[in-house]
């Protein structure tokens, strides 16, 4: 990712930055705005909800209050009406009781009653009349008859009441004297009836002088009755009996419950212990007085009835939720309730709620839509602004990147060598400054390069001249080996390896006369051109002087005089000069401040000869030098060198030294001085390693092979093999040749050429030498080291018919394929690949000899 950012173009970077800033700002603004709006809308929504709630609450309260008022109004009306009815009845009873008391108080005022009271029997007439019976078998005494007479007067009141009010079922009286009197339309007779033991009687007796009400009760026919009772007393205040009236409670209840509020209004009547006295019994249902059976949460409802002081309340009656108002019926202590279905109260409230909610929702939706619109708006803005910014950014960026690209191109041009094409700065900003400065730099660069070119050209010229000089110098030193091939008993090799292009070391090899060879090795002080110039002078002087004869000491003395003359530069030369008598191997030498020569005998054992040193040449005039002599053994010689060899330094600044030099000389395997010098070179190279060559390295190796007519044989190995003249012997021949060449490390290409030639020649012998194919071929192989070369000579001889294969003409190797012939191609190859091919017929044998330089 980091890499990606790094490699993004400036233009892109700029645009990205601007975009980020612009879009980022926008994003932030919109985000802020949006959150504010969302917040606001949230608040508004909750405000709506609060308002709706308040409205709803107020409405429901109002509704409830309204309902309550209505209910209460009704219930109080109802209870009042009920109370009135009940009071009427109790006053009737009371009046009857008072009347009876009056009669009992003044019985004399009342003669025989106009009202007939017949005795009860099984055949009671079913019509409104007065009947009597004696309870509990009490006898009907005169007393009783008198009392009964008095009682009968009550009919006055009874009949008047019963005529007026249909709810009276009948009046009856029970006395302490066991008279039971009844004035009713419905008569029934039970001989066991004892008035005093009846509940109504006992009730009245519980609070004498007060009108009391029984509980409602249901008769065997399923009708509900209630009875009002009162005692009446005699003149002395003792209770004489009880007067009671039975009320058709059903009728009363019906009247009470008839009114209801609204569509769902019901009423019900609770007794003084809150048991239900009257309510609308559902179809097919039976009357259940138990309060708890009807009301859910009866305890709470009782509470509400008791404490409310008339407030309306909600309760569940028979599974319906009702809003109930109650009122006391003081006369009997009953509670009259009227109720309406909760739903009827609440429905309007719900409707208002719904409406309010709808309004709230629609407003909420509008708000949300508004917010949504805001987002879309934002996105559109982003895109628009994004585009604008990108375009603006793009053009802005270009003003930066275009100049940079142009400069970049210019750099490319400069790299290709064009220093003249320039970019014109187009603006004054940093890129313009850069362009201007860049152009300046370009000019500087141009002149620098031109300068450099001049200097380089000059250097190259000097280098070229030095190369020429090097060549001239190199050509001055004898470099053809063997330098004197006619002198077969001399083996010589020399090399000069300069440290710089031109060096100060030199060597010289020349014949002073037919029997004397001079060896010169010298080292001019310093390196480079000055040393090279001095070297040329020195070499020339030495040779010239030596050719005139004299001993080495004399020669050096004279040369020194000349060199020291006019030697303003104060250069000097070390030199060793040795003259060998070719025929005898006798050497005279002199040393002018040069390294000790290393001498070896026929055993190739090297030792440093600590020869007398004269002063270096060209240093001072008048120097004298000393000759010394030694004789070389057959196969012995010397090795001379310049100090560059022992002073070869490695990277640890250690010197090769003369000890290591001697070791190298002694350990080398060599037959020819060339190999010896090479061995020393290898050892010094190895020693030096990476360190550069500081000084010129020059060496001469000389081996005297003995007197001319007794030259040491060059070591060689001659082998012979006899083969049958059959091509199947070819493998044996090849093995033989391979073995021969193995020892001398023959290059494979050379070996193959030798083998091709051998195969050719041998095949000829096998196929044509002997008419009957039977015969032998003798193959000899010899490898010689000569003048630093390894030469292999192979001869094939047979005793077959004389035949010179070389006499055949060469084939045409330029002919097109169709016209080519194989014939003669083999011999042609032999002639072309071998150095020498000779044929001779001697002593009855064909002899074909091939010679090939291996290395």
């Amino acid at each position, binding site marked *: 990712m980091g890499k990606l950012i790094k490699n993004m173009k400036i233009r892109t970077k700029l645009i990205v930055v601007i975009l980020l800033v612009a879009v980022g700002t926008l994003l932030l603004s919109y985000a802020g705005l949006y959150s504010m709006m969302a917040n606001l809308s949230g608040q508004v929504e909750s405000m709506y909800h609060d308002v709706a709630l308040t409205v709803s609450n107020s409405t429901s309260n109002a509704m409830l209050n309204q309902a309550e008022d209505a209910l209460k109004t009704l219930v109080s009306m109802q209870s009042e009406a009920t109370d009135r009815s009940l009071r009427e009845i109790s006053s009737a009873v009371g009046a009857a009781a008072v009347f009876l008391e009056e009669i009992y108080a003044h019985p004399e005022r009342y003669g025989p009653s106009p009202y007939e009271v017949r005795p009860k029997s099984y055949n009671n007439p079913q019509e409104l009349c007065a009947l009597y019976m004696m309870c509990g078998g009490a006898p009907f005494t005169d007393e009783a008859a008198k009392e009964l007479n008095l009682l009968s007067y009550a009919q006055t009141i009874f009949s008047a009441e019963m005529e007026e009010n249909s709810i009276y079922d009948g009046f009856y009286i029970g006395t302490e004297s066991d008279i039971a009197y009844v004035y009713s339309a419905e008569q029934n007779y039970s001989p066991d009836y004892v008035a005093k033991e009846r509940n109504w009687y006992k009730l009245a007796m519980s609070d004498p002088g007060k009108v009391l009400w029984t509980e409602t009760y249901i008769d065997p026919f399923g009708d509900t009755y209630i009875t009002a009772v009162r005692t009446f007393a005699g003149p002395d205040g003792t209770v004489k009996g009880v007067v009671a009236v039975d009320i058709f409670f059903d009728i009363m209840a019906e009247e009470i419950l008839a009114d209801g509020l609204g569509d769902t209004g019901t009423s019900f009547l609770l007794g003084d212990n809150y048991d239900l006295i009257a309510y609308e019994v559902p179809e097919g249902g039976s009357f259940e007085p138990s309060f708890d059976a009807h009301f859910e949460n009866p305890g709470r409802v009782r509470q509400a009835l008791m404490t409310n002081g008339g407030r309306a309340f909600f309760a569940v009656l028979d599974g319906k939720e009702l809003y109930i108002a109650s009122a006391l019926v003081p006369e009997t202590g009953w509670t009259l309730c009227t109720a309406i279905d909760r739903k009827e109260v609440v429905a309007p409230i719900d409707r208002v709620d719904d409406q309010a909610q709808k309004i709230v929702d629609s407003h909420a939706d509008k708000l949300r839509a508004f917010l949504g619109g805001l987002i879309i708006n934002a996105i559109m803005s982003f895109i628009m602004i994004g585009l604008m910014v990108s375009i603006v950014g793009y053009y802005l960026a270009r003003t930066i990147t275009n100049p940079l690209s142009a400069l970049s191109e210019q750099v490319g041009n400069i790299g290709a060598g064009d220093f003249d094409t320039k970019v014109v700065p187009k603006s004054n900003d940093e890129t313009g400054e850069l362009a201007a400065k860049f152009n300046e730099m370009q000019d500087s660069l141009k002149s620098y390069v031109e300068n450099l070119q001049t200097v380089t050209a000059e250097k190259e010229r000097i280098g070229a001249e030095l190369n020429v000089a090097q060549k001239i110098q190199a050509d001055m030193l004898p470099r053809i080996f063997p330098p004197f091939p006619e002198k077969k008993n001399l083996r010589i090799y020399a090399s000069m390896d300069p440290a710089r292009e031109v060096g100060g070391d030199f060597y010289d090899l020349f014949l002073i006369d037919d029997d004397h060879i001079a060896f010169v090795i010298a080292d001019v002080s310093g390196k480079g051109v000055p040393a090279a110039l001095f070297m040329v002078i020195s070499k020339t002087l030495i040779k010239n002087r030596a050719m005139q004869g004299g001993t080495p000491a004399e020669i050096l003395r004279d040369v020194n005089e000349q060199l020291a003359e006019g030697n303003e530069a104060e250069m000097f030369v070390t030199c060793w000069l040795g003259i060998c008598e070719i025929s005898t191997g006798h050497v005279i030498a002199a040393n002018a401040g040069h390294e000790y020569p290393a001498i070896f005998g026929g055993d190739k054992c090297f030792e440093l000869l600590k020869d007398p040193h004269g002063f270096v040449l060209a240093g001072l005039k008048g120097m004298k030098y000393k000759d010394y002599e030694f004789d070389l053994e057959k196969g012995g010689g010397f090795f001379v060198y310049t100090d560059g060899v022992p002073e070869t330094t490695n990277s640890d600044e250690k010197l090769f030294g003369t000890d290591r030099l001697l070791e190298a000389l002694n350990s080398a395997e060599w037959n020819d001085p060339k190999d010896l010098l090479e061995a020393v070179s290898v050892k010094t190279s190895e020693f030096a390693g990476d360190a550069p060559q500081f000084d010129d390295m020059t060496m001469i190796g000389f081996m005297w092979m003995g007197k001319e007519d007794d030259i040491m044989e060059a070591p060689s190995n001659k082998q012979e093999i006899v083969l049958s003249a059959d*091509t*199947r012997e*070819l*493998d044996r021949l090849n093995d033989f040749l391979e073995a021969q060449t193995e020892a001398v490390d023959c290059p*494979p*290409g050379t070996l*193959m*050429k030798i*083998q*091709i030639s051998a*195969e*050719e020649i041998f*095949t000829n012998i096998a196929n044509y030498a002997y008419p009957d194919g039977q015969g032998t071929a003798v193959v000899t192989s010899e490898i010689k080291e000569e003048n630093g070369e390894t030469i292999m000579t192979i001869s094939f001889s047979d005793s077959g018919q004389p035949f010179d294969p070389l006499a055949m003409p060469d084939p045409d*190797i*330029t002919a*097109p*394929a*169709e016209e*080519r012939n*194989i014939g003669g*191609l*083999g011999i*042609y*190859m032999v002639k*072309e*690949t071998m150095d020498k091919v000779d044929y001779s017929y001697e002593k009855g044998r064909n002899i074909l000899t091939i010679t090939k330089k291996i290395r």
Partner: protein
Amino acid sequence: MTITQSVNEGIWNIALEGRLDINTSPDLEDLIKDEPDEIRGIVLDMGKMNYISSAGLRVVLLMLKKMNKAGKTMKLINVTDPVYEVFELTGFTDILNIERA
């Protein structure tokens, strides 16, 4: 000498391993006599052939003449330096299609 050969899309690939000399060149010569049908040319792989004498050259020339006559191609591939030198020396480089190794 080991000779391996295969025919591939009309080309007869022959690879030589070892020496092609007076004794082994008859094997190659015999192989050539049995030219497969429907070949358009020969490719002679000399990568592992480490020796060729004039006897070998003879067989190669034979093959070339045969192919030329039939209007077919012949190509030498993976020719090593010493072998190439022999071809060069004998002017065979002028008449052969040689691909050096």
